[in-house]
């Protein structure tokens, strides 16, 4: 149970050779004591590298790792009291489940009576009681991953636990159960957790706060709600949500003395806050709107200028709702909108779309624009 902080971390693989790659650059992150956090990002963005730097399996090229304010950058993993659960279940299969759980304690010289007590507690929590004396090779990857998790949290002095895409080998149908037990364990022990994944659904359901990385840099560390509602840039907007935010390239024009977003012949009003922050000299602007915020209308709204005419190009049924893709008339801009599953709509039909101003985000040079 501890606060984990990484400061100005930079990591370069194969430094000084032709294969030199900067895996992580300029990363600052503080995980508060006892919180569940996720580290999310596309494959190859440096998530696993950051994880290994925190657990001490890798030495960062630059920067520091602090646990409860103490600099542990130079310490080996064994002295950091950080547990790690790997992508596939790492199990000592020459020992039974009990032996696996006892392993880190025995290595630390904990008396057998205390080990037994501790194992009982963990087995109750993770529901491993029935298999304590089974050989791991007879258990499936799901149970083995739980055993690996148990081995991580068995030590009373574990200060944090890191998960490196732990659901990779788990069957989709069992993910929910496993995730629930992982979450319960985290809460029960009030343990600081960092969960690496490229699946936003996993990240958002597990964590209170999610850190999103891209190309070795930390882009945003925030609550799921904020990531969804207030993305700091177009990458987050597009990355979070399924489908992601609509990002529509636009120009700026002046209408009635105030700047407006302009897509082809269509003028789009934005909220007053954004509109005060805009500068007519800007180029490279995008408006962002969630598919669920777009209002769709089939009947011609006549003179209501808030509606933009469009033509449906694709309709997809996604479980309880439909995602339709429509092209704004006289432009080549496509917009996705979410409508109810029984909404009657066909491809090539003319519709009208409205972007409610208070749901619109505005991005200048990919960065979100806020009130001045």
């Amino acid at each position: 149970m501890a606060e984990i902080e990484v400061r100005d971390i930079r990591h370069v693989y194969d430094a000084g050779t032709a294969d030199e790659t900067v895996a992580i650059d300029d990363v600052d992150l503080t995980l508060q004591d006892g919180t569940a956090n996720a580290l999310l990002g596309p494959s190859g963005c440096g998530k696993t590298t950051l994880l290994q730097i925190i657990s001490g399996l890798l030495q960062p090229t630059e920067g520091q790792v602090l646990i409860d304010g103490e600099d542990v950058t130079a310490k080996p993993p064994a002295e950091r009291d950080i547990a790690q659960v790997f992508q596939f279940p790492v199990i000592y299969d020459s020992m039974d489940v009990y032996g696996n759980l006892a392993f880190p304690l025995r290595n630390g010289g904990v008396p057998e009576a205390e080990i037994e007590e501790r194992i009982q507690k963990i087995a109750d929590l993770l529901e491993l009681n029935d298999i304590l004396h089974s050989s791991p090779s007879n258990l499936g990857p799901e149970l083995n991953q739980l055993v690996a998790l148990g081995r991580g949290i068995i030590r009373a002095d574990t200060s944090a636990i890191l998960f490196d895409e732990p659901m990779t080998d788990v069957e989709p149908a069992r993910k929910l159960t496993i995730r629930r037990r992982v979450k319960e364990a985290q809460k029960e022990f009030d343990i600081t957790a960092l969960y690496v994944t490229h699946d936003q659904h996993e990240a958002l359901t597990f964590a209170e706060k999610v850190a999103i990385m891209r190309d070795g840099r930390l882009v945003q560390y925030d609550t799921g709600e904020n990531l969804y509602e207030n993305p700091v840039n177009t990458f987050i907007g597009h990355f979070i949500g399924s489908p992601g935010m609509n990002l529509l390239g636009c120009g700026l024009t002046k209408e009635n003395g105030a700047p407006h977003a302009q897509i082809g012949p269509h003028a789009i009003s934005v909220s007053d806050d954004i509109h005060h922050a805009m500068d007519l000299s800007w180029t490279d602007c995008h408006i962002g709107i969630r598919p669920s915020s777009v209002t769709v209308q089939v009947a011609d709204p006549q003179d209501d200028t808030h509606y933009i005419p469009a033509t449906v190009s694709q309709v997809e049924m996604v479980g309880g709702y439909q995602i339709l893709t429509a092209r704004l008339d006289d432009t080549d801009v496509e917009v996705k909108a979410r409508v109810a599953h029984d909404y009657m709509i066909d491809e090539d039909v003319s519709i009208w779309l409205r972007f409610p101003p208070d749901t619109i985000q505005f991005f200048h040079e990919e960065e979100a624009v806020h009130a001045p």
Partner: protein
Amino acid sequence: MKQRPWLFLLPALLLVSISAFIPLITVMNYSQLTLLPGTEPYFSGLENFVAILEDEAFRAALGRQVIFSFLVLITEIPLGLGLAMAMPKEGPGVGLSLVLLGIPLLIPWNVVGIIWRVFTRSDIGVLPAAFDWFGYSYEISSSTFDAWWTVLAMDIWHWTPLVVLICYAGIQAIPEEYYMAAKIDRASPWKTFRYVTLPNLRGVLIIAVLLRLMDSFKIYAEPFVLTGGGPGSSTTFLSTYTSRMAIGGFQMGRGAATSLIYFFIVILISFVIYIVMLNLGQGAGGDQ
């Protein structure tokens, strides 16, 4: 044409029957005949087997054979595993080590015998000269002890590289995450070896042990060239005994019976070792 798959198997079946089945059946046939030069063969049942099992020379050769194979296994397997673990995992050292290890494996058996024969000759050999310098009188042709350890050393030199290569391939295949987990779990180097390296090499070690067991049990050309089975019969192993019986003694029936007993012993020991190793440490209790 349901028989078509059999047509594809036919060449292999033919080859195997010519090289294995037919000789084996022939040997089984011979083993129950009394075959002496110049006389008509006649059926004598199990007489050959009884005679061999009662032969002191056979029992002595079998005893030597078991001791030899045992010594080969307890030296070559740990040594090979140790060398494999010490080998570099990446960089230019890998290629160099592999080539150096490959050299003894590329030399034909009888050439190995000849190399060591020259190496140990009392007149021009380097080994006796070197021992002489240390004040030890090395005599391969008269000292049982010297002959024994030289045959053993020759086998270790020739075949340990095979164990190294097999183990090295096995070590390379162990996912790095196991070692990371062991570090996080505060495992000592010994425990990391005991609970990570060794269990993950179980399959590979079974193969190495079986290969070395069977090959060492069948050893023939090298000691034959190096010592000729001597001094006396101190380095006469089962294969030397068998060939003497069959070819040297013109007792083809006895030779055939010896071969079958020999064959049976090799299969039996291999099977027992295979079963034991397969179950060794497999999910064994929570003990340390």
